């Protein structure tokens, strides 16, 4: 077993909202292995931001145990806690840079806590800016930078004290898709180069898909599902998880478009609209042509998408099967035997036939 660098145990966080007690996080366990990239997904208000703030105790839990780097953070004195925080970097949705300091000054800021001399601090800050590709602009002020560049500065700042952990709180949510990708790639590089453990929270499964190894799905303060990225993507159990995956893989919008199209709302009895999810090996086999050859069932592809995760390939397809009804039924059984998840898309109801 690999070592857990973060170990949250039975975390509860409650707020007082006037007279009302609001539970933001309920009985959450979270273990993150050293060197992992762990995604926490959920809609806003699900409690993800509150949960990650427990990791560096910016948010004190109402109850529970917080162990980070083998230290019980709740037992630490203020100064020791601040020392521990220097080893937990954090980046934010709105970057949170100081506008009165140059970007070099922003990166230098966390180093004030160290015993480094001014020259050493500036040297280190410059090196960090080089790492994120912005050393040429060190004397600029944050307002002169684009969103993506600001986030790079924030990353450099978060790395100033050579942390073991980086917490990313919706760090790409304010960025455009291209910039998001470049920031995610940077995080991945840092993970590989520095062995940095990353906890990434987001409402976009897309971001998780790019870099995470593990993912937890949160809803109403609870973790409702968790696992490796492959298992979550291939066999999501909860409706919410499915929803996130459908958005990330574009399957959701595609299904909606197809089922709303009048052309597919009144199919003849020898036609069947289906959604197929291929996992692993089944993506490598010529299944559609087999249907035609063995079962006399033609597949008309309306939508197809292939996602490459770390070790797995996932395929998503929407197609109209055409053939004799008995042949179609047989063809569907054949698909299920071959580990293809089949979902019948009927005009009114969507019934699931799990394989």
């Amino acid at each position, binding site marked *: 077993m690999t070592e857990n660098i973060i170990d949250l145990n039975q975390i509860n966080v409650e707020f007082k909202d006037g007279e009302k007690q609001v539970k933001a996080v309920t009985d959450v366990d979270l273990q993150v292995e050293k060197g992992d990239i762990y995604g926490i997904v959920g809609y806003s208000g699900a409690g993800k931001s509150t949960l990650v703030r427990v990791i560096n105790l910016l948010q004190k839990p109402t109850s529970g145990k917080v162990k980070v780097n083998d230290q019980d953070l709740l037992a630490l004195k203020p100064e020791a806690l*601040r020392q521990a925080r220097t080893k*937990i970097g954090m980046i934010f949705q709105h970057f949170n*840079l100081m506008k*009165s300091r140059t970007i070099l000054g922003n990166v230098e*800021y*966390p180093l*004030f806590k160290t015993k480094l001399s001014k020259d050493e601090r500036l040297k280190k800050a410059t090196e960090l800016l080089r790492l994120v590709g912005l050393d040429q602009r060190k004397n600029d002020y944050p307002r002169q930078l684009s969103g993506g560049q600001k986030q790079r500065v924030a990353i450099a700042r978060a790395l100033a*004290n050579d942390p073991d952990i980086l917490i990313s709180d919706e760090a790409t949510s304010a960025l455009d898709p291209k910039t998001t990708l470049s920031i995610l790639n940077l995080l991945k590089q840092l993970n590989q180069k520095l062995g940095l453990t990353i906890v990434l929270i987001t409402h976009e499964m897309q971001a998780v898909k790019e870099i995470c190894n593990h993912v937890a799905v949160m809803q109403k303060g609870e973790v409702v599902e968790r696992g490796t990225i492959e298992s979550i993507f291939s066999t999501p159990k909860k409706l919410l998880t499915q929803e996130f995956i459908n958005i990330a893989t574009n399957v959701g919008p595609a299904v909606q478009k197809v089922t709303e199209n009048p052309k597919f709302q009144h199919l003849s009895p020898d036609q069947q609209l289906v959604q197929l999810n291929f996992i692993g090996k089944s993506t490598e086999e010529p299944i559609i042509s087999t249907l035609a050859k063995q079962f006399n069932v033609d597949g008309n592809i309306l939508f197809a998408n292939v996602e490459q995760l770390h070790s797995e390939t996932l395929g998503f397809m929407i197609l109209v099967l055409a053939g004799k009804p008995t042949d179609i039924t047989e063809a569907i059984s054949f698909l299920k035997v071959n580990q293809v998840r089949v979902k019948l898309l009927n005009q009114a109801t969507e019934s699931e036939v799990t394989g």
Partner: protein
Amino acid sequence: MASWLPNVIHMQSEFVQATWQTIYMTLISSLVAGVFGLATGIFLIVSQPGGILEDSFLYGLLDKVVNILRSIPFIILLAVIAPFTRYLVGTTIGTTAALVPLIIGIFPFYARQIQNALTEIDPGVVEAAEASGSSPTEIIFRVYLREGLPDIIRVSVVTIISLIGLTTMAGAIGSGGLGDIAISIGYARFENDVTIVAMIIILVMVFIVQFVGDWLAKRLEH
């Protein structure tokens, strides 16, 4: 000259002295009230609900003290604290005696202004500093006071200008300075030119403060 300023022309040395007295009162009370006001404003910010040193008792107390002191009209404050002034300075007349009510009158105003200026600072920036391991003191000096500096200068300008106004009011109880001249000579003896010249000198002082302040604030803003 003599026909335009029949009385002022004979009072040049009085005007020079009164101008210095006004500058003296403004300067000293700015400095002292500045320190108290800044400290109070910072305490209000850090102790407020959700602040870095949240303390509802301290916050409630300071908040009320500031509100009450700000509600007392200055001209009444002058009279009310006269015994305290006498205890402190030994007299209630003169520029030095005027410093006591001036400081007490202006510091709550400045504290509130500082609080408003620092409220503008993005809580996210403060959170980032906390996350990087900064202590409350470090956050006050390296984040709040630094990030808020342009706004602090702006509210200081507003405060100093108000303070110049208050020094003239203190003239009503014999503090010396331009307000005193304007009231006890210009107004009481119907020597209008004296009042007008006193006003013009005060306007010039206000403009200078405003100009220097704006220039500084702009220079510090990035």
